[in-house]
């Protein structure tokens, strides 16, 4: 019953300079070479995000594998006009990583502690990191433009995988306040980073 897709026997070299969008379009036709290229060009981004959320390398690898298998399976659903391939993949990656964080109370407790203790230091590390990317510098600057509460709430949500009610408990503020601060903070970030949709 399992149907193995016909391998794309087209010129493998033609893919060498493809954008992620072009690669994803080829992946959607069952092209395994394109999938390998897509993995090579994006896996450090995806794994970096997942590992930031899950901390544990073994779990991060498991979830990264789930993400790439989902990319393989659902590449036919990707629509370029609705956003970049990287955006599609990182959105999927974050959701999967958050699902894993929430799947275990123990890991949630652990991540909460780590999130609270480390996020300031983490940002110092990012700043000092020799390989810090342009995006990293831009994000760091934009985050500095938020109020303290906005910044903490956004970081705990995105980098810690905490839900709004968990953030409320950590920061000792009402849930409603967390929701509005996150929204205000995200709008401010959007404007500061010039995100257009």
């Amino acid at each position: 019953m399992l149907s193995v897709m016909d391998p794309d026997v087209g010129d493998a070299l033609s893919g060498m300079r493809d954008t992620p969008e072009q690669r994803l379009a080829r992946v959607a036709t069952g092209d395994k070479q394109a999938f390998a290229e897509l993995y090579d060009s994006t896996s450090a981004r995806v794994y970096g995000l997942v590992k930031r959320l899950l901390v544990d390398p073994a779990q991060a690898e498991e979830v990264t594998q789930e993400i790439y298998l989902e990319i393989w399976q659902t590449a036919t659903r990707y629509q370029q006009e609705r956003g970049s391939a990287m955006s599609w993949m990182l959105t999927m990656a974050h959701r999967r990583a958050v699902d894993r964080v929430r799947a275990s109370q123990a890991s949630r407790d652990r991540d909460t502690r780590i999130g609270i203790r480390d996020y300031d230091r983490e940002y110092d590390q990012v700043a000092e990191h020799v390989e810090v990317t342009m995006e990293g510098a831009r994000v760091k600057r934009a985050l500095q433009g938020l109020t303290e509460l906005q910044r903490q709430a956004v970081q705990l949500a995105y980098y810690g995988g905490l839900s709004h009610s968990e953030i409320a408990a950590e920061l000792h503020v009402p849930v409603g306040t967390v929701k509005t601060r996150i929204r205000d903070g995200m709008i401010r970030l959007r404007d500061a980073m010039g995100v257009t949709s």
Partner: protein
Amino acid sequence: MTKRDDAHLLSGAYALDAVTPEEAELVQSAMEHSEELRSEVVGLTDTAVALGLGLPPVAPRPQLRASILDAIQTLPQLPAPAQEAEAPHEEPAIVQTAMPAGAHVVPARRRRRRRPMALLAAAATAVLLFGGGFLVQRTLLEPQSEYTAVVAAADVQSARATVPGGGVVKVSWSKSEHRTAVSVSGVKAPSGKVLQLWSVRGGTATSAGLYEDGDRFALITGTPSSGERLAVTVEPDGGSTQPTSEPIAAVPLDA
């Protein structure tokens, strides 16, 4: 405060995956009726992606690449949307194919983001990765004979669990047949709800398809791996990407 106000207030938390499943549904539903909200959610989702791009890249171990490339060799892809519309709907459902009501009118961005998982839970002809590495699919073959082949196989193994308040979930599998059969008896999902099957390994649940009223069994391609459990939850019609309620039964599968 109206529901629409609630949904709007949640746009940021929604973009960061910091909402409950119920709130996510509320936002998705509100986006269908408000272009303003939809546009805001798209922008904030892209902003969240920028936060991800702000992290230093970390290269995974080379073994992961080998493992993933190996896994896709036998992992079929979902059909393109146009082909999906032509997929047959008439025959007896094994793993049910119902899409969430109104899914076809959900606009744009969030749909793209949510739909793949909804499809993984429920797609016709899709083959899904089970947590333990076994594959789930809706078989298009004669169902009853397949079921009989599993439960009558010489190497059949089975496990069962009772549902509190009445009902039994029985799981049978045969390595020689390369099939797992699930039957749920004495349980009826409330109106607007559906039973959903999950492969559970460690703390991770992976959908193994829906089990709707009237189904006598579900067939899953593959057999469980050691330590895997099959859980049954009650989910909103159309199924969920992750369990939203406590399982009514969890069957340990000691392969």
